[in-house]
């Protein structure tokens, strides 16, 4: 997928998150993009690693910086005590989206799927859920939910085994639902 096409999807994702009431800081965009790629297979090509508090893509961080430099998005202060929200620039973002109607149409359902599940989640929950999914997919693939929860806790001790187990149950159920979305 080419850069501008990928940017159009990111803009659509950010718009959808914001419309559904998400505060939409960088962590929200990082974790939502992770689920978009890993759970519903939107091929954006970002490399995610298990970073301090969950899956994180340095490439995506750079891409957001590039989008900001290109005037596609801006950082907006809603409340000085909180981190900035990411806001698309209406004119430039619309122009870009208009170039990729097929791509956006093709992935609209996947974006809606992810946004519906993450829209009201605070950052701590997003970190936990995304970590649970990353460990299930990349690290402890064959383990049952208890084994995976234990592994999450070993790798990220700030998440208790109980919290990890709860997160794994959630992402397992989302993963099951996502399969129907992926079927032709």
């Amino acid at each position, binding site marked *: 997928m080419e850069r*501008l096409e990928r940017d159009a999807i990111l803009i659509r994702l950010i718009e959808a998150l914001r419309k559904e009431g998400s505060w939409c800081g*960088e962590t929200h965009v990082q974790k939502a993009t992770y689920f978009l790629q890993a759970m519903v297979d939107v091929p954006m090509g970002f*490399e995610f690693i298990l970073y301090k*508090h969950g899956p994180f893509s340095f490439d995506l*961080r750079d891409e957001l910086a590039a989008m900001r430099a290109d005037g596609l998005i801006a950082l907006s202060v809603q409340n000085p005590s909180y981190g900035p929200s990411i806001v698309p620039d209406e004119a430039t973002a619309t122009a870009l989206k208009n170039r990729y109607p097929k791509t956006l149409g093709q992935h609209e359902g996947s974006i809606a799927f992810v946004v519906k599940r993450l829209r009201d989640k605070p950052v*701590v929950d997003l970190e936990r859920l995304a970590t649970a999914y990353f460990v299930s997919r990349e690290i402890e693939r064959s383990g049952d939910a208890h084994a995976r929860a234990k592994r999450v806790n070993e790798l990220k001790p700030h998440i208790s085994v109980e919290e990890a187990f709860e997160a794994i149950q959630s992402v397992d159920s989302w993963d099951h639902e996502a399969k129907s979305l992926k079927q032709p």
Partner: protein
Amino acid sequence: MSKYAHEIRDPIHTFIHLDSDERAIVDSSPLQRLRHIHQLALSYLVYPGATHRRFEHSLGVMELAGRVFDVITKAENIRDESVRDLVRPHDSLRLLHWRRTLRIAALCHDVGHLPFSHAAEQELLPNGWDHERLTVKIIESLEGLLAKLEPPVRWLDIAKLAVGPKRCEKYAKAGDLPSNAVPFTDWESILAEVIIGDAFGVDRMDYLLRDSYHAGVVYGKFDHYRLIDTLRILPKAYEQESKEPALGVEEGGLHSAEALLLARFFMYTQVYFHPVRRIYDVHLKDFLSEWLKGRYLGDRFPTSVNEHLALTDNEVTAAVLQAARDGQCAGHEAARRIVERDHFHLVYQWNHDDAKTNAAATDAIHAAARDKFKAENVRRDSYPAKSIGVVFPVWTKDERVTSSFGLSEVLQRIPAAKFDLVFVRGGLEKEAREWLKRERTAIITAKAREETDGTARA
């Protein structure tokens, strides 16, 4: 009796302090090679003073890494219980071990650089290679030396802190690192951030100060003493009470942090992105791609440690001078351009106005210029905006963690630096500029319409 503590004079930090164990690493061939790698490639053709080398930069990064470590691990500088668990400030043996590991990682972070630093890396190394991967291999080759230190340090720890989690993940997948090297612990992530972090990495602090000093460009200066004194590990509590640790500052250091990020913006736009500096890099790349043919496997720079260590700017400079004089030599034309200062000239650069009309405006101009003036007479060089680290935690005077971005209007307004430049051969620039004046709007809008009509890669 031999001396254990040593000092090296330095124009930026006055003294670099090191002990005999660290000096053994400094004296090793991978570090000594950096005396022959220019920090800013051919920038000295534009800024004659910018002839400094990676060697002194590496010493400076080690010095600053030690200073930052001492500040952020001091018990009285810890503001949050989750950070106290991470740092364990009273476990002095553990801290001594990590201080040494961090300083040696800082010292070694650039050992994989190719001749003339970044100038030719992407195109002229085999696929899947970059200078950081070479850095990891070279650090591994120092294993015997590192094991002799008292107490010994592990090469893998050094490599991890020197190149950071993103690259280690890649190299672990490629089999260069053991699979248990990743994921990083939070502690390892923070220490890697001390060296290569986006906002407060000491690599960046040193190169801004050092490059500005040598280039004679004052914009790169900032109060790094104050900044380092106020650095803290803080949870990113401004993100809905997240406990994720990150490097931040006390509120009293916010202006120094602003100055660092402004210095970065100015140095990028004034020095690192200078169009003449960039086009000399392109000519050097053109030369090297010819010079490497038949010399190494795959016509690319070698990736074996010994062959890499044998290549410095000196060998390449000698080859450029020779090729410039001899029309039969590989890369003669590019070498001649460098030596005779007959570089290509800038005709177009990315700008917001054109990008609003067509986000791929430079692609369109570049393609049209190649059609009009032939590919061999046109060159392009670009660098995308990267994360500019304007959002980090700040410990306020009323003892809260808040976001730098909300506190600082300066940070809200620092633009992200990027460039995308199109050049033509000398002698064509007048014609090219007139052509562009006439055709610019048509070229940019034609491309935009074409994509809208459904030829986008959807």
